[in-house]
């Protein structure tokens, strides 16, 4: 059985997070992804932590290793004429080009879509950028913090009396990478059907504002003029709802809808809750949030996470674990479904990674290959695929082209 995308070739001019995650989705499902890095330096993510044993070595960045599995890596200096010529030769055979430079970069290299289209009319060119290829902010700089601030979520994250909070990690950029992969796949169908590729412009800011969640928030405002506020510790009056400590960890309880109250009483084996006027009268109920939580906290403190989840789910109350990262890795559900993969890398060794985000039963995932070393596949791509000789490779290296 062959992987699903083995006949798709992706030229990968991406770096950091959003672009590499997009092309990782392709490479994890078998596409031939050729990642092009700057000679000597490579993807900026190679300089970002976490590093294995805190050794800031370009082949030991956990971020880079994670985002570039199953890709082939070559180096190419696009600021040289020869580099551009080789790149254009690669474009001839590519289905999709993904890049996430600042919008002006490819034009400045003479690689506008018009030029690429002449070389390969079927080419889908996906550009991911902070704010998109057009518009007044197109050249504005951003980091994850700035991107998240300019989407519809950050204003309502955190405590009401403190500053709004960013999400941990690079969530906006991962999201844009995910959407970019989905949309590039769509555009590829169009290119195959019509013989005509096109440009796909992905703005991370717009990914945050699009369906589902961002658009839902914006629509509430459009309809009701309601801004979602920071609620921090608890959404006053809605209970039980949120993260709660138990004997050996934390759980999420999603039980604030009125229909859940009889189930909560049954779960806690406290039938008296069903008669307590503080909790059953919908008008005064919100005022007794603290009273109920005092009872709940005490009850939870004596019970274990897994017991609580099982007994709540038996009553159809959505209760689920809230894990620290170490606990995520031990979870029975994830492990039963092989959600993690161990990958052996020539310099970083065997490490457990998040696995593929879904599995295709008719097109199995091959054993996963590690992220490429800088220029690891130069010989394979330049010599075996493109027909340069070993001597040519030396010349290209000496002239700082690869």
């Amino acid at each position: 059985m062959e992987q699903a995308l083995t006949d798709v070739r992706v030229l990968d001019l991406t770096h950091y997070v959003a672009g590499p995650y997009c092309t990782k989705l392709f490479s994890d499902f078998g596409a031939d992804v050729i990642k092009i890095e700057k000679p000597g330096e490579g993807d900026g993510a190679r300089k970002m932590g976490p590093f294995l044993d805190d050794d800031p070595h370009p082949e030991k960045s956990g971020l880079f290793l994670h985002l570039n599995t199953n890709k082939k890596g070559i180096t190419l200096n696009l600021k040289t004429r020869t580099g551009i010529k080789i790149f254009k030769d690669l474009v001839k055979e590519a289905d999709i080009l993904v890049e996430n430079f600042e919008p002006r970069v490819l034009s400045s290299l003479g690689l506008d879509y018009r030029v690429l289209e002449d070389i390969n009319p079927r080419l889908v060119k996906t550009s991911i950028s902070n704010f998109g290829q057009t518009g007044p902010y197109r050249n504005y700089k951003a980091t994850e913090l700035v991107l998240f601030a300019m989407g519809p979520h950050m204003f309502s994250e955190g405590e009401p009396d403190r500053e709004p909070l960013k999400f941990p990690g690079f969530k906006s950029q991962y999201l844009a990478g995910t959407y970019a992969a989905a949309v590039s796949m769509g555009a590829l169908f169009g290119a195959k059907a019509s013989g005509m590729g096109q440009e796909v412009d992905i703005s991370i800011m717009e990914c945050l504002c699009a369906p589902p969640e961002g658009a839902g928030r914006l629509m509430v405002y459009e309809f009701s003029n309601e801004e979602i506020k920071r609620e921090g510790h608890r959404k006053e009056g809605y209970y039980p709802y949120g993260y709660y400590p138990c004997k050996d960890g934390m759980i999420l309880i999603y039980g604030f809808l009125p229909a859940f109250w009889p189930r909560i009483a049954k779960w806690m084996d406290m039938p008296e809750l069903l008669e307590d006027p503080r909790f059953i009268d919908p008008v005064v109920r919100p005022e007794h949030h603290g009273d109920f939580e005092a009872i709940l906290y005490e009850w939870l403190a004596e019970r274990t996470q897994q017991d609580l989840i099982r007994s709540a789910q038996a009553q159809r109350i959505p209760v689920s674990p809230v894990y620290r990262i170490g606990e995520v890795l031990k979870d029975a559900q994830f492990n039963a479904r092989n959600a993690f993969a161990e990958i052996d890398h020539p310099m970083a060794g065997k490490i457990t990674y998040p696995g593929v985000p879904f599995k295709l039963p008719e097109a199995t995932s091959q054993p996963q290959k590690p992220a490429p070393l800088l220029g690891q596949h130069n010989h394979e791509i330049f010599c075996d695929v493109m027909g340069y000789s070993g001597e040519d490779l030396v010349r290209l290296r000496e002239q700082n082209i690869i």
Partner: protein
Amino acid sequence: MAKLPLAGIRVIDHGIVYTGAAATTMLADMGAEVIRIESIQVLQPFTRGFMARPPKTEQTGLGYPDLDPGDRPWDRWFQLHGLQRNKYGITLDLSRPAGVEIYKKLVSISDIILDNFAAGVMDRLGVGYSAIKEVKPDIIMVSASGFGATGPYKNYAAVGTSLGGMAGLASLRGYPDDDILIRTPSPVWSDNAAAGTAVFAALTALHHRNKTGKGQFVDLAQVETFLPHMGESILEYTMNHREPKPMGNRDPSMAPHGCYPCKGEDNWVAIAVASDEQWEALCRVLGNPEWSKAEKFKTAVDRWENQDELDRHISQWTAGLDHYDVMHLLQDVGVPAGPVVRSADLYNDPHLKDRGFFKEITHRATGTHRYPGMCFQFSKTPAEVRMPPNCLGEHNEYVYGELLGMPREEIEQLKEEKYIGDAFLPEIP
């Protein structure tokens, strides 16, 4: 004008709440013919409102235009409007065998079925993969349940907020100086990851079908689509056996890197300084004040170590300024900065306006409003809003009549027997 890329692909959409509904919308935006199946016997909460006919109070009105549920609340709910353009909408009662038979006819002319029910729901309705592939052997079915269709949690109920907790997002969300977690669950962020990944899964499977002739069942666990988005935190643990901690707005290496108060009520600006050049540019905008020349802010390492004090200085500067003005001042010299926006800011944002992100749509149940648009722009086949969000059962005539070729009398009989309709049954609360 060339056709949209997915023209000619037909999708049956059982999407509810966020994940499924948004995944099929992305397919529809790219040109697929998406047929959304609902039933007048079952109200899907979050998708068409919490109640079929809510009483008119201020609280129950939230989520409807002008806080008014109107005569057909299910056609006015914000989640329908925010998410559900470009689709055909039909109703069909799948709880009766005759409904399932009609459904199978639709399956026989479709390419993809996408649902995000709990695992097993489609099977119980008699329209699980094993039943469906008898009708259409090369069908692609993407079932996007919370935890997946196998494993010890396969029958567990999940909501979007469950998944962030299970994937470790919740434990990293908070202020660095506060050991208590932010207890209000995060927005259903993992739904975003799941929706985009489900589209990628459906199209990858379709690509495989086009090559091999084989369809397949994709058991997609929403929570697993989110794990890779936590990648570097997971590797921090697996490489170094170290439990990552909440960092708030701080960065492992950049400083200043934070959210600073601005003029006005609850206004903030995010500023991130990634290099010495950017630090010098920031100082120039501030007028090179005396404090900025101190030894303790000289190098990137110094600034990171003394960032509490650095943040106080920067807050003093931003406090007198408008948050959008700070963005422009700093971006003009190449320093990453942006306001923490409210929804109102986004609707008025000149950049989003210039790019035409919001689309004005006139809908028969709600009038004219500004709708959030697509997360992508195509250069040659622009994606537009071709159809407003579908009213309940709006396209019954098209689908049953034109697509399935049922005679008028038969459609009328389905209406009479309540297999189809355009309003929830009166007994639905």
